[in-house]
């Protein structure tokens, strides 16, 4: 397969083409039998040689890391598990003793479920069935008892609700943990609480009150999004700007060309006005395709993405430190593989027993 754009270095095996109105060479082709006389069968040594994992940026709430040398199916598994299958803790049952506010019980209960909690899921067990009894191993109890009153010492002319009233807002910080059984020891030093105490859950007026009890359990995001440990978990492919060395950008248009890209991506030589690509800032390119709109740049540049270079961005919401999340995701994936392997080996044994395969009806 000869590519028309050999002078830009576009490689259809490695690159995904980004044209003005279409994407090209999207699927990977590194499978046995795709190219004659080439071996693309699985080899751990070759995989390890190409694999690169590099953490780029880390904060207390998010992480950005590069995963290079893997197929999209692998990167996507990591991303999907982060969203839907890494467990976390959220309020599941709400027992309402009293609620004289304007918000209906079921609406408020739904809101309570969405509050992110700081409880480390490894310290708890999954409550598998609805019929399972709540125990100190699988349930965390919170109480919420808030009454709104008039603030008698407030100045007469004040208009601010937080000054005129006491508890005019129910906030996440009002949830108080009630230790059960041995939880006082297990959670010593790290008391279960919402990760952010300032989330406003409801507004109240004098005379209104809520009194309720909540049971928080361990769950996964595929059951309900409130159990998802991440705010976002996404990846994108590394952008590439491929300059055609046979047709350089005209020097008088160099600065116009530079402005077609994100800041820092294109360098212009101060003396010769020659354009070049800043490899370090390339990842910031938004791929707006602005350069492809101008006829004067036609043939000067080609845009592409690296098919096996995934830039992950994961924002933690809840108990996990962001750098721990990818590890948890891989742990869940390896557990899935182990479970299926055990079942498949069981099938192999059952099959070799009588030499007759057992097939299901469906």
């Amino acid at each position: 397969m000869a590519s028309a754009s050999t002078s830009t270095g576009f490689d259809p095996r490695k690159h995904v083409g980004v044209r003005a109105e279409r994407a090209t060479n999207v699927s990977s082709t590194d499978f046995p039998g795709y190219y004659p006389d080439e071996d693309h069968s699985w080899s751990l040594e070759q995989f390890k040689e190409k694999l690169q994992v590099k953490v780029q940026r880390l904060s207390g709430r998010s992480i950005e890391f590069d995963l290079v040398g893997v197929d999209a199916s692998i990167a996507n598994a990591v991303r999907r598990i982060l969203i839907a299958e890494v467990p976390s803790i959220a309020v599941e049952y709400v027992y309402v003793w009293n609620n004289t506010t304007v918000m209906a019980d079921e609406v408020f209960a739904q809101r309570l479920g969405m509050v992110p909690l700081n409880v480390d899921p490894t310290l708890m067990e999954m409550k598998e069935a609805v019929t399972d009894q709540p125990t100190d191993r699988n349930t965390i109890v919170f109480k919420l008892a808030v009454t709104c009153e008039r603030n008698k010492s407030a100045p007469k002319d004040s208009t601010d609700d937080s000054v005129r009233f006491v508890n005019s807002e129910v906030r996440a910080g009002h949830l108080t943990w009630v230790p059960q059984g041995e939880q006082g020891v297990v959670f010593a030093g790290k008391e279960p609480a919402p990760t952010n105490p300032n989330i406003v859950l409801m507004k109240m007026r004098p005379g209104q009150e809520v009194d309720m009890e909540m049971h928080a359990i361990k769950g996964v995001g595929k059951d309900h999004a409130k159990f998802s440990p991440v705010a976002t978990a996404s990846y994108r492919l590394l952008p590439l700007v491929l300059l055609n060395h046979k047709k350089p950008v005209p020097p008088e248009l160099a600065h116009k060309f530079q402005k077609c890209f994100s800041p820092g991506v294109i360098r212009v030589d101060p003396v010769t006005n020659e354009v070049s690509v800043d490899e370090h800032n390339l990842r910031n390119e938004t791929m707006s395709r602005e350069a492809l709109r101008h006829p004067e740049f036609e043939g000067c540049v080609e845009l592409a993405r690296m098919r096996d270079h995934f830039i992950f961005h994961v924002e933690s919401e809840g108990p996990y430190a962001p750098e721990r999340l990818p590890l948890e995701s891989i742990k869940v994936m390896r557990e899935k593989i182990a479970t299926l392997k055990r079942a498949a080996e069981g099938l192999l044994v059952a099959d070799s027993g009588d030499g007759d395969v057992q097939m299901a009806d469906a």
Partner: protein
Amino acid sequence: MAETPPKIRLLKGAEQDLSAATYQIHNESHTLGNALRWMLMKNPKVEFCGYSVPHPSENHIHIRIQMYDHLSSLTALIEALNDLDTLFESIEDAYKASLANGSYEVWEEKS
């Protein structure tokens, strides 16, 4: 609730020697299906491999494997699972190594 179906079962219509078979995997989705399909396609003895999610509200996937030379698709499946596990193990090791060497930007993010 009805009894839980087996984790994996063989669907009707498979070859007696399992050289071509469709497996139904319970409680799995694209997450494992696509990764497993990719790893099976990396095996040169696999003639065809594809997976599907037959219905979005049914909690299972189907994976179809056809082999060359009358080899067993079940053996190939187990081999692919082993390889997939070592693949994720090496990603885990590489990630830990990158985190340990500490050459990344640490910044303060306001919530």
